[in-house]
């Protein structure tokens, strides 16, 4: 089986696995990265969202072969407590979640939005997050947090 190579959060990564394996299965299994969450396994909820290149995708139905030579960014690559992404700071400032299971996927959708549109409107944010499901009803707080992060990034 040929190895598939891609950059994962900036690190060159070789994976030796069936090319049809889902990216989520590789991330959570072989690589032990638990940030992207399994929610449905059918690309319907967005809990496993990651960024490939500059596009957000559902890792649960993204096959390994499609990643050859691509840049993959997961929530682990977004930022951490020492060096948080403005979105992460904003989500804490707005207390923008309840259970938080969906939030890693939502942060990735929001990060992809801010990459292509640094000045989104409320409507833009809702459209960008519309494929992510949240069951606790934290939607409005999340939208506020994304707008706050955009404003903060703009001010810098």
């Amino acid at each position, binding site marked *: 089986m040929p190895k598939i190579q891609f950059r994962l959060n900036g690190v060159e990564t070789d994976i030796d696995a069936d090319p049809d394996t889902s990216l989520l299965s590789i991330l959570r299994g072989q690589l032990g990265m*638990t940030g992207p*969450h399994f929610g449905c396994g059918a690309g*319907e909820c967005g809990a496993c969202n990651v960024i490939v290149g500059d596009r957000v995708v559902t890792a649960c139905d993204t096959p390994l072969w499609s990643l050859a030579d691509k840049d993959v960014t997961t929530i682990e690559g977004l930022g951490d407590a020492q060096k948080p992404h403005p979105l992460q700071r904003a989500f804490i400032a707005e207390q923008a979640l309840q259970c938080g299971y969906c*939030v890693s996927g939502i942060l990735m959708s929001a990060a992809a939005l801010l990459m292509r549109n640094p000045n989104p409107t409320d409507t833009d944010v*809702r459209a960008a*997050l519309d494929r992510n499901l*949240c*069951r606790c009803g934290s939607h409005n707080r999340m939208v506020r947090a994304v707008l706050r992060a955009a404003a903060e990034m703009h001010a810098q």
Partner: protein
Amino acid sequence: MTGTAPSPSAPKWPVSLAANPNLSSWIRISPDGQVTVSPGKVEIGQGIVTALAQIAADELDIDIARVQMVRASTAGSPNEGVTSGSLSVQQSGRAIRQACAEIRQIFLNVAADRLGVRTELLDISDGTISGPGNISTSYWELASEVSLDRHATPGAVPKSSAQRTLAGNSVQRLDLPDKIFARARFIHDSPLPGMLHGRVLRSELSGATLVELKEDGARKVAGLVAIVRDGNFVGVVSETEAGAEAALGALRKGATWSSRETLPDEDGMAEWLKVQPAELAVIASKTASSTPEKMRTIRRQYARPYIAHGSIAPSCAMAQWTGDRVRVWTHSQGVYLLRADLALVLELPVENITVEHMEGAGCYGHNAADDVALDAVLLARAAGGRPVRVQWSRADEMSHAPFGAAMTIEIEADLDADGEIVGWRHSIWGNGHTARPGRADQPALLAATELARPFPRAIATNPPQANGGGADRNSVPLYDFPSWQIECHRLTIMPIRTSALRTLGAQGNVFAIESFLDELATERGEDPVDFRLRHLSDQRAQDVIRAVARRASWKPAQRDGFGYGLGFARYKNTGAYCAVIAEVEGAEDISVKRLTIAVDVGEAINPDGVINQIEGGAIQATSWVLKERVRFDSQRITSNSWTEYPILRFNEVPEVQVEVMSRPEMEPVGAGEAAHGPVTAAIANAVFDVLGLRIRNLPITRERLIAAMELSS
């Protein structure tokens, strides 16, 4: 605020402290400056852990950063039953507050002895106890000589609301940074050393029997450790999660199922529920002192469908056997209750079973969390002492977990010549709203019904009115009608599995009562706010309705295509007061634009936490009202994916404004379930306002609107 402030009720001894009187089971103070708080209630995404930490830090006069919150475990946590019913602040919070008040007093007394001054002269600041002339000691210094291994005694008086510094402030949630920085906190993300992966094979057919199972395909899958079969219960254990999925897929191909069960006709549910075998309970009865003249009677029927929990995470558990002892990790709402049911199934003494809580995704009632724990325990028996993690599929989560029960509600109002209500009858039909584990002599866990020696399916019941009721929750009007008769018909058969979902029957009953009142007010030509205020003698109820009317500038001028509606309830008639005004835009589809809400939860420990819960409840209720309905055919639940069971999306979410009434002197009550009923009714009433259509069958979808138009034309 208008009107006189209601007087605080007399404090009662906290029930959780009565059940678990040992102070050290709640609080431990260590010499290194840490305070460990060990509640029996669990974090289910509602922020309870933070609110309880605030209460403890406040009462002990310590920085909240010193507080370590311990996850509930049967190995030592106080037994507080189940985390449900919006009771965690009431039960756990009051127990912790009382225990901390006594502990503070104990330390003050010891410090006074040591320092040779009277306790009244001592002060505590972040755990340092100081007195006149720079004398001081601390909790940490005294920790080793003060034993908290003693029973709580009445006498210590918790601080007054004015003395508290943390309660009433929006402290940031303690669990959020982990979740935002993707540090493993969920059970799903916390593998144990040497862990194996399990999956259970379940037929989509309802009440299925396994006729034949060909195992060859699954046996060929790399990494397979075991195939477990016990009657209709079948599962696989594998070295890897992918291996478990692959083996499960192969096993599914090799399985033949049959079923003799048929499910009722989904479209005729409301009528079907009324003609099934049922147990009748009279919930409340009130007779008028005089017999007013009844001129006419109006009867209306309301219905809601089965509703799915739909947690974003599928249920997950881990289990590990050591000899005849098993350790279980679960996101169940009640570790002791789950343990009791596991003991019944395994025929083991409870001492052999340890159940520990770990966080799962948002939990809105009795979902599959407990079921998957038994699955893990059964599969782990074949794992040679290694731990096994089991996770359900999305499809199983949406079709095999218990649902919130479908309800049919009929209300009759007797009216006098002026259209005033002189008699009121409210009848409910449906399955019970709880079949939780640990409460009966039979287990309530799914796999228990699938074993070769199966336990019977637990038929859902209703908690008594004293505990808030089940199907009958919020069926007794808070309004001052002269007489009423409230009855509940609980089905004694249960073709579709039901158990506790957020608010139990309250969402249906509040929808029915508040829709009907709106109709009666409209018929009299009376403003719905005035009509309600005139029938409410409860001051706090009046206050939230006035507050929401003021905030929403009731009633906004009529705009083409927009409608406004009001809904009100006091959750369980003993909990939070909540009034809602909905603004909807409607033509072929209804879209909810704005929900304005006033809520009175008594003392709001964490006001932003209260707002977050109310906002979340309001948005979830909007989803229930506009979209949600469990679908089924004669043999199976068909709404087993997010495509088949859509929920509200970001583009469809209304703006939500919440006003929290300031009641620092009143007992705190929970906020998690207060909004669902009033939001449901407010939306339905707003739909009438804009379209002139009364939708009495939820959800309010395009097809229901069309059906109602046809009926009215």
